[in-house]
């Protein structure tokens, strides 16, 4: 009896499915049927059904303004803003003087996180949007501060260094970062409808363990007061729909303090020094449906070497909004150390998703071998001879109406080598592998 019932259920389901498909197939070319069906679905807010029926219409070359608007609104109501924008833009091609359509495009861009793109669209359609959207050019559109604390929990740093005697360079040094504090601020100004100025500065204070062998004098001691001041500025242009081109430059002033090691007559004096490094970059990123694709080129002079960086990034928004995204990046740095060129390659994979309320979670893994590189579209410089091998970042982000707060915990694995002071270049000697933790807190205000 049970088996019979099971089979009759199976046949019934199959029959309904075939019947539904047949009847839909029969009607799928009828404009009148699809128009009235989609309108009814729109009125009753059956968004999934509406998306399905309009898809059938488009497959059968039934394509018109109101239908595109219905599909766009269905996706918009489901918060799939990138897909909504696609349909609203198609509707705009069919009827480009409709205010409601332009309003939807503006908000779809804004809620999909394409802020610069949304502003550009607003100013290109100001006549239609000025009544509905209260947007004004801001001299200062955002301000952010972030504080970073880096900590290497190594217990006995002195034991990590070895003496080379006659086997290594006579004069050399090695620095092991023990901890650093870093404060950064950033300002964004709207210069015109599609051009923004982004600039800021940072201050870094570092404590390291210093090991030096100089004319047979050995120094092995903790040093404090390594400072770095940085100013950076960039222009971000949105020349076309979904396209952003950014050019940025960094100027870094570092200083290494003068130190006496030892006491009395046997004390060794290491004079301090200061100098400048710089980095410049140009990049372009374009939104293509559910993707954002682009890359950049950087040229830097960090730590007495020259770096040429090529990188590419692909962001994927599977749901067509910011609720879920993946970021895949590849970095290639070619470092010229006094004529000797070394190539480093690193990759990053990131996953971000919305958790509850306005809170997002991000997890990021960075692998490969990379040092002296630029990150965050040129607005962060990793100015260090420490070669990063693995990095895990975990972030919590709260996106509010006027403020964004971000907390990041990061675990880093890296190594460094002995630096030959006679030839002024890094050697392969005394590789020290380290593990470190970083805590980052960032707050930004939107005006």
């Amino acid at each position, binding site marked *: 009896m049970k088996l019979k019932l099971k089979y009759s259920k199976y046949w019934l389901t199959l029959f309904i499915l075939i019947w539904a498909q047949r009847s839909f197939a029969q009607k799928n070319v009828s404009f009148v049927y699809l*128009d009235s069906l989609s309108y009814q679905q729109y009125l009753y807010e059956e968004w999934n059904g509406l998306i399905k029926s309009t898809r059938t219409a488009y497959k059968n070359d039934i394509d018109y303004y109101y239908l595109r608007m219905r599909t766009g609104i269905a996706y918009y109501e489901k918060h799939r803003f990138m897909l909504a924008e696609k349909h609203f833009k198609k509707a705009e091609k069919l*009827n480009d003087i409709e205010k409601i359509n332009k309003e939807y495009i503006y908000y779809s861009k804004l809620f999909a996180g394409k802020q610069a793109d949304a502003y550009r669209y607003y100013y290109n359609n100001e006549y239609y949007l000025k009544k509905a959207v209260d947007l004004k050019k801001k001299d200062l559109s955002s301000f952010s501060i972030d504080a970073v604390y880096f900590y290497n929990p190594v217990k006995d740093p002195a034991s990590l260094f070895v003496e080379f005697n006659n086997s290594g360079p006579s004069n050399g040094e090695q620095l092991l970062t023990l901890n650093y504090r870093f404060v950064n601020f950033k300002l964004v100004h709207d210069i015109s409808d599609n051009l923004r100025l982004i600039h800021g500065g940072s201050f870094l204070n570092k404590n390291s363990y210093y090991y030096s062998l100089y004319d047979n004098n050995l120094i092995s001691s903790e040093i404090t007061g390594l400072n770095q001041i940085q100013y950076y500025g960039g222009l971000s242009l949105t020349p076309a729909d979904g396209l952003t081109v950014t050019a940025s430059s960094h100027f870094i002033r570092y200083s290494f303090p003068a130190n006496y090691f030892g006491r009395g007559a046997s004390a060794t004096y290491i004079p301090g020094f200061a100098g400048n490094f710089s980095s410049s970059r140009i990049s372009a990123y374009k939104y293509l449906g559910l993707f954002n694709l682009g890359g950049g080129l950087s040229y830097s002079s960090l730590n007495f070497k020259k770096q040429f960086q090529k990188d590419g990034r692909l962001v994927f928004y599977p749901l067509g909004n910011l609720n879920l995204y993946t970021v895949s990046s590849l970095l290639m740095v070619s470092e010229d150390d006094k004529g000797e060129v070394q190539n480093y390659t690193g990759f990053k994979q990131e996953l971000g998703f919305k958790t509850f309320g306005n809170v997002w979670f991000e997890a990021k893994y960075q692998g490969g071998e990379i040092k002296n590189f630029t990150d965050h579209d040129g607005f962060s410089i990793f100015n260090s001879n420490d070669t990063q091998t693995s990095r895990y970042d975990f972030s919590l982000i709260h996106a509010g109406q006027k403020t964004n707060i971000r907390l990041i915990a990061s675990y880093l694995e890296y190594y460094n080598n002995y630096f030959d002071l006679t030839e002024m270049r890094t050697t392969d000697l005394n590789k020290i592998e380290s593990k470190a933790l970083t805590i980052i807190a960032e707050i930004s205000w939107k005006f």
Partner: protein
Amino acid sequence: MEILKAKKTLLILALALVVSGLKAQTFTEQVKAFQQSYILAASGNYAEGINSLKTVYMENSYEINLRLGYLSYMAGRFTEAIAYYSKAIDLMPYSIEARLGYAYPASAIGNYSKVLEQYEKILEISPNNSIVMHRIGLIYYGREDYMKAEKYFEKVVNLYPFDYEGLTMLAWTKLKLNKTREAKSLFQKALLNTPSGSTAVEGLELLGN
């Protein structure tokens, strides 16, 4: 050899007669189909009217495509109507009636960019077409783009300075653009044409007259 030549000539003649007979038959069928479509459309049976014309459908016939465009529009099959009107336009690119016809279904489904495209094409063919200028003006007025609407209504009123529709629409547009003195004068002219014209009276009342 001569016999062969004569045979050939006869064969060609016979074939020509058959073809012209077929043509004549098709034309008669066409007339019948068109007549049938008028009768059916008069009783509101547009779908049957379409079916009757489809029996004699020829892709290269401007008249059939134009008529099918109209019948499809009346039957509410707007995308089909657009397809027929497009074919008619392709066959007769200078046809204003086909472009005006196209505008109906395109408007019905909201494809105003296409409507404006056709209207602009008509203005290229016939630069002083007042119907088209008035309609373009109405589209912009409806979208509250009064600057553009003014441009078109102005032209209409220059061509037909004593036309009630043109005068009132230009007056309302001027009113929306806060050109009150000009609006008042235009409403007054409209009232000279139609002394009881409600929209002109309403406009003047709004202006405090």
